[in-house]
């Protein structure tokens, strides 16, 4: 599904990703873990095409993404839920969901798809015409995920979905990721909450200072307290 090889990225002069190689197979949940500043968010942004200076190769469903603008990558079936600025101010919940479809070939089925997503996210269903920024942080994050899912992407990249969200909603959210996987959506997840992430993930990559330092199945990593200590303790 996704094959990142020898990916390098720069923020102006600083070389923040060095020869990152990551693979995500269809239907998998793959998790990127590591400390703040390890390069997890930068990896997702590079895959989505949001950085000015990157080098290497990113193959998605066999097609090279490097050199393509972000909107083309979306059109190929790639979705990204950023860590910050999740919800657009001044728009209602429904408008935010519609925004997830404006560039999608599924746009004609808008009403039907919004109904469908409302069944998956009952909290949003109750608030469709409310201004989205008046909801709690967790509900806003649910909306951001719903907005990315509504166009039925093949791969969804989530950056720190649980950050700053009440535990009860976090559990709900991770149940949702399981359900997404069951429906065949592939997930690339960046998460600080390592135990929780490894619990639903198939495999994980450990990043440190812009390189991949370790990769293993989620089960192995869960048992490997040394790696977790060394690269993930905050």
């Amino acid at each position, binding site marked *: 599904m996704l094959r990142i090889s020898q990916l390098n990225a720069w923020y102006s002069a600083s070389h923040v990703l060095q020869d990152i190689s990551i693979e995500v197979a269809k239907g998998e949940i793959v998790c990127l873990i590591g400390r703040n500043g390890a390069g997890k968010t930068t990896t997702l942004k590079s895959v*989505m095409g*949001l950085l000015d200076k990157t080098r290497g190769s990113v193959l998605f469903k066999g097609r090279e993404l490097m050199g393509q*603008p*972000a*909107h083309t990558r*979306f*059109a190929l079936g790639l*979705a*990204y839920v*950023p860590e910050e*600025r*999740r919800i*657009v*101010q*001044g*728009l209602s919940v429904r*408008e935010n969901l*519609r*925004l*997830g479809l*404006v*560039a*999608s070939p599924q*746009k004609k089925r808008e009403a039907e798809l919004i109904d469908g997503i409302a069944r998956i996210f009952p909290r949003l269903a109750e608030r469709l015409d409310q201004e989205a920024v008046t909801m709690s942080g967790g509900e806003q994050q649910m909306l951001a995920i719903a*907005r*990315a899912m509504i*166009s039925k992407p093949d791969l969804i990249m989530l950056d720190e979905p649980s950050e700053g969200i009440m535990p009860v909603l976090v559990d709900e959210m991770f149940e949702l990721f399981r359900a997404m996987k069951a429906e065949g959506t592939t997930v690339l997840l960046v998460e600080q909450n390592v135990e929780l992430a490894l619990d639903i993930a198939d495999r994980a990559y450990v990043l440190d200072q812009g390189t991949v330092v370790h990769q293993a199945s989620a089960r192995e990593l869960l048992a490997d307290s040394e790696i977790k200590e060394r690269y993930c303790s905050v």
Partner: protein
Amino acid sequence: MDGLSFDLIALQLFAGLALGAIYVLFAIGLSLIFGMLTVVNFAHGAFYMVGAYVGVYILMLGGNFWICLIAVPLAVGLIGLVVERFLIRPLYGRGMDYPLLLTFGLSYVMVELVRIAFGKTGIPFDTPDILQGAVDIGVGYFPLYRLFVIGAAAVVLLALWLFLERTSFGLIIRAGARDPQIVRVLGVNVAQVWLIVFGIGTAIAGLAGLLAAPLQGVIPEMGGTILAEAFVVTVVGGMGSIGGAVLAGLLVGVVVSMTSLFAPEMGKVSIFALMAIVLIVRPQGFFGRAGLMS
């Protein structure tokens, strides 16, 4: 209050609204372009002026005012599309001062080209026959054409509002003005949206120039004056806010109109005094977002 009856004041208020309607049309384009592209379009006055001259040209060719109403925004909007695509687009990502300087220089080029084509002296622009004369609006007789200007601005505003609120493209514009990155991530080619917004903004500026032509005549420098006044409107209304541009445009029109009645020598100064007061009381303007420029 000798000589200044209530009716006279009321009529002057309406005259102010007509003037304000032109400001509103001018300023919503300016505001839309700034809000979306973060381009301070110093050529906006030049597009306004070109709108009036395209009208002059159409009349010279034997067309009438109603043809102008359709053809002028289309022609000026087309020029806007070309300017955005080939002159402004290469400057994105280099900071706000680049497009600002470019449009500033471009406005001089456009004015000079019009001087070459139409001469330096002003050209009178007749009010279309059917809109000549005055109608009784209850407080006295009011020029029909000014009433038409108010109505035309209202129609444009309503159409723009429906476009922004009811269409998918409008949704993209509203979201993109707040957060271009999210819109990009959701598959929208933002560069294309910016192009169209610039085209719409300049088309409305051209229409404003045409509507102003019968009121003020047509000269190559007509854009410079309104640009200065429209910056007052956008600052008072709040940078990037369309609702703010509407309210502040009408307010500035009324203030100019009223001061020219009570203290004609203060006419030009009054709006800058208004701006100073608003900036002291509410630095972000009526509907602006605080910290937008920081």
